[in-house]
């Protein structure tokens, strides 16, 4: 039996009038504004408010059209809920006005003079078009809107690619296609990124990690470029205004309020191409800053709940930005959990990377907790059960937890030690062979007892030098950021290869290309999850700026002209990624242990030096070879070839003796970074057998990747 007609709800009728509007007591759950038959249901939490009003605006109007006070009967617990009928939801902006005490010593900072944005707003207007000058006197700058979450996903779900099989590509929605060379119809938007999906497929990555896409204000940066006087933006967006709302200024349709549909379409199309979406999320602080910052939402609704406060009621500043979100307060835990569930269930997001995640394990008084309830909850939540959780396992107040982040068997970490070790080894520093070997084996020293996919390996990320600049600059050059080059990190472990900045010398340029290939080669053959910074595959430069957070211009944008100009590096990267996908032995879940676990006659991983089976771990050594036995791929479950990676960080060439292979097999050359293109790079699966079966002459500053498999007969 089927029922066709839509039955009306018995609560779809108003019970009284407030402020000229027909209303009834609302439903406290879910929080925020949700369309219901005949109207919109509004629900907001405030523990310490003495009065709460719903403030309604016609879209874009400078003054509210109405303010509806919640009567006491419309409150359950500390939640105010009201259903308002006959609203034109599409032309409506709403906020709240909370009255209550202002007494910072007790944590209260109510201000009935402010219209507050809904923390649960799923659509926010006010910064609809990126960079457009707003009305700075607007009584309500970031306006909550009502959203209908009825996107037609078809059969799409998060993809569920095993973490160890991911190749992550870190990019910025705007920066990826904003450059005039991008050739897309809507540069700098979700729709623009969607047009570049074929490029991502060709590159071979199967996960994009997007810099923050929760609504933020790109105009909250007070600085200007000292040379040009131009306004600097908050380009990266690590300063969230609204956690449930996608950045409107990243949508070509933001001015029509359709950013949610546009972003969801991007996710759906990426999924169709086999590419997961990880969001960089910033739960450690909000855009409200410290005592002197703007009151946008949380501060005016329940300051003492949402922020970590000192006993004197001042803001703790573990984030380095003025305030710290009180993540392990039960109400805030619920907020963070609801938010992540929302993005997974309504946007089909595949994973999250948590900015300054060490803050998430601090107690309300700032003490690091051994068993932080928020992290445990996220690890076990039913909706998030297969969502990738990646921690930036440190904060701005000295809590450094790489390898020690409370993980519940679920969390991966940005491996900062991997980054530093690879950089220092390739630069040619002595005493790093053992360190590099540990990093390439998945950092078992940090993640023993966890899987190798606990380690997200990277050499570069948005924060710091690009790969090209890592081999082109000894020092950062951040003058354009307006802080006299004081901002940005100084521990770059970079080497300019002989000349600071762009070079006309063929020798310098060749060396730089080789060094970039060396690092990509290490990254994509290491155990763990590789992450590539967008543009590194084509040698993107920021002219030595290692802190591009404010550079919304050609310094940061992806220059698509490089795709042709640096086609050689791009092809090298593409094939390396394909090589990783083709060789499961590089993506084994468990850490290799150095012994034969499947009876192949070879250890799962073995170490070599100039002599086979004789690694040189001494302080002056700069050469190392490692062999992965293909019979151990995925714990012996699948068959693979042997893979040998030889790395020479020395300025002289070396003859490497190669480990012997089983009868009938031979070493084949996949890549040698010292050979000029088109030599030194084979198609995956079509590698040629080495002329000399037992040795390989490896040039200075070079890396070789060999495949050991059956000799082709005939």
């Amino acid at each position, binding site marked *: 039996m089927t029922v066709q007609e839509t039955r009306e709800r018995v609560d779809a009728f108003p019970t009284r009038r407030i402020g000229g509007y027909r209303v009834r007591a609302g439903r406290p759950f879910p929080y925020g504004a949700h369309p219901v038959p005949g109207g919109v249901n509004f629900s907001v939490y405030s523990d310490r408010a003495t009065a709460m009003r719903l403030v309604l605006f016609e879209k874009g109007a400078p003054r509210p059209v109405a303010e509806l006070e919640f009567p006491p009967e419309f409150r359950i617990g500390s939640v105010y809920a009201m259903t308002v009928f006959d609203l*034109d939801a599409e032309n409506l902006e709403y906020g709240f006005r909370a009255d209550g005490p202002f007494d910072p010593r007790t944590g209260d900072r109510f201000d009935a003079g402010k219209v507050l944005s809904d923390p649960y707003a799923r659509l926010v207007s006010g910064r609809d078009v990126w960079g457009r000058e707003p009305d700075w006197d607007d009584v309500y700058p970031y306006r909550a809107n009502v959203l209908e979450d009825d996107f037609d996903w078809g059969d799409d779900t998060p993809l569920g690619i095993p973490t160890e099989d991911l190749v992550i590509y870190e990019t910025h929605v705007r920066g990826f296609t904003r450059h005039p060379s991008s050739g897309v119809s809507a540069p700098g938007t979700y729709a623009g990124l969607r047009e570049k999906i074929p490029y991502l497929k060709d590159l071979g990555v199967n996960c994009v990690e997007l810099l923050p896409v929760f609504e933020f204000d790109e105009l909250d940066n007070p600085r200007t470029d000292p040379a040009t006087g131009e306004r600097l933006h908050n380009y990266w967006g690590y300063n969230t205004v609204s956690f449930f709302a996608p950045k409107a200024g990243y949508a070509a*349709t933001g001015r029509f309020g359709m950013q949610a*549909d546009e972003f969801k379409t991007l996710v759906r199309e990426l999924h169709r191409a086999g590419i997961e979406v990880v969001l960089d999320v910033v739960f450690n602080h909000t855009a409200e800053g410290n005592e002197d910052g703007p009151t946008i939402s949380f501060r005016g609704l329940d300051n003492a709940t949402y922020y970590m406060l000192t006993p004197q009621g001042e803001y703790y500043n573990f984030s380095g930005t003025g305030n710290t979100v009180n993540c392990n307060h039960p109400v805030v835990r619920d907020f963070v959990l609801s938010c992540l569930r929302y993005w997974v269930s309504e946007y089909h997001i595949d994973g999250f990377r948590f900015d300054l995640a060490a803050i998430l394990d601090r107690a309300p008084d700032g003490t690091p907790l051994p068993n932080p309830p928020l992290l445990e909850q996220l690890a076990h939540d039913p909706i998030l059960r297969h969502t990738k959780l990646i921690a930036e396992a440190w904060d701005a107040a000295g809590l450094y937890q790489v390898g020690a982040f409370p993980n519940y068997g679920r969390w991966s970490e940005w491996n900062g030690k991997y980054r530093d070790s690879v950089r220092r080894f390739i630069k040619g520093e002595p005493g790093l062979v053992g360190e590099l070997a540990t990093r390439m084996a998945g950092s078992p020293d940090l993640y023993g007892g966890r899987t190798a996919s606990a380690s997200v390996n990277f050499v570069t990320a948005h924060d710091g030098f690009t790969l090209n600049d890592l081999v082109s600059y000894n020092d950062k050059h951040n003058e354009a950021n307006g802080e006299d080059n004081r901002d940005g990190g100084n521990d770059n472990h970079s080497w300019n290869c002989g000349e600071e900045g762009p070079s006309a010398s063929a020798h310098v340029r060749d060396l730089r290309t080789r060094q970039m290939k060396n690092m990509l080669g290490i990254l994509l053959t290491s155990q763990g999850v590789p992450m590539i910074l967008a543009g590194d595959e084509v040698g993107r430069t920021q002219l030595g700026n290692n802190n591009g957070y404010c550079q919304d211009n050609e310094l940061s944008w992806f220059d698509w002209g490089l795709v042709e100009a640096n086609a050689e590096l791009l092809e090298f990267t593409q094939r390396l990624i394909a090589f990783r996908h083709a060789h499961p032995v590089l993506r084994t879940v468990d850490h290799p242990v150095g012994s034969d676990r499947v009876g192949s006659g070879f250890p799962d991983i073995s170490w070599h030096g100039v002599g086979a089976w004789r690694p040189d771990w001494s302080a002056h050594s700069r050469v190392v070879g490692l062999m992965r036995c293909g019979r151990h791929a995925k714990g012996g479950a699948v068959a693979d070839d042997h893979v040998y990676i030889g790395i020479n960080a020395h300025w002289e060439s070396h003859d490497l003796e190669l480990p012997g292979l089983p009868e009938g097999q031979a070493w084949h050359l996949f890549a040698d970074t010292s050979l000029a293109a088109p030599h030194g790079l084979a198609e995956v699966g079509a590698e040629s057998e080495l002329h000399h079966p037992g040795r390989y002459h490896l040039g200075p500053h070079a890396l070789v990747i060999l495949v050991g498999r059956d000799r082709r007969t005939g």
Partner: protein
Amino acid sequence: MTVKLSSRTEGDTTVVVLEGEINSTTSGGLQAQLLPFVGEGSRLLIDLSGVSYVSSAGLRTLLIVHRRAQQLRTGVILVGLSEEVRFVMSATGFLDFFEIEDDLDAARERTGR
């Protein structure tokens, strides 16, 4: 702002011509007017050349009509999309669901196969 609707029949195709804006204030009434044209065996062609703007609610209305047609194993063809309407529909993914033709003639050619 309102939306005006007129209709005619061409063979087994119903042609509906819309004029105005399809937004939250007009889309509810429009949906009620459009749904009766969705019938078994007859194709619905909606001419949007007189429509200057389709809002989020408007796009949803069109998609609901399309879904209803699909349930009845028939189809909706949209013609005469302005550049802006087409761009918005493309960016938000709505375009993927519909059959689109440039104008009535192109649509007639297609349905006349």
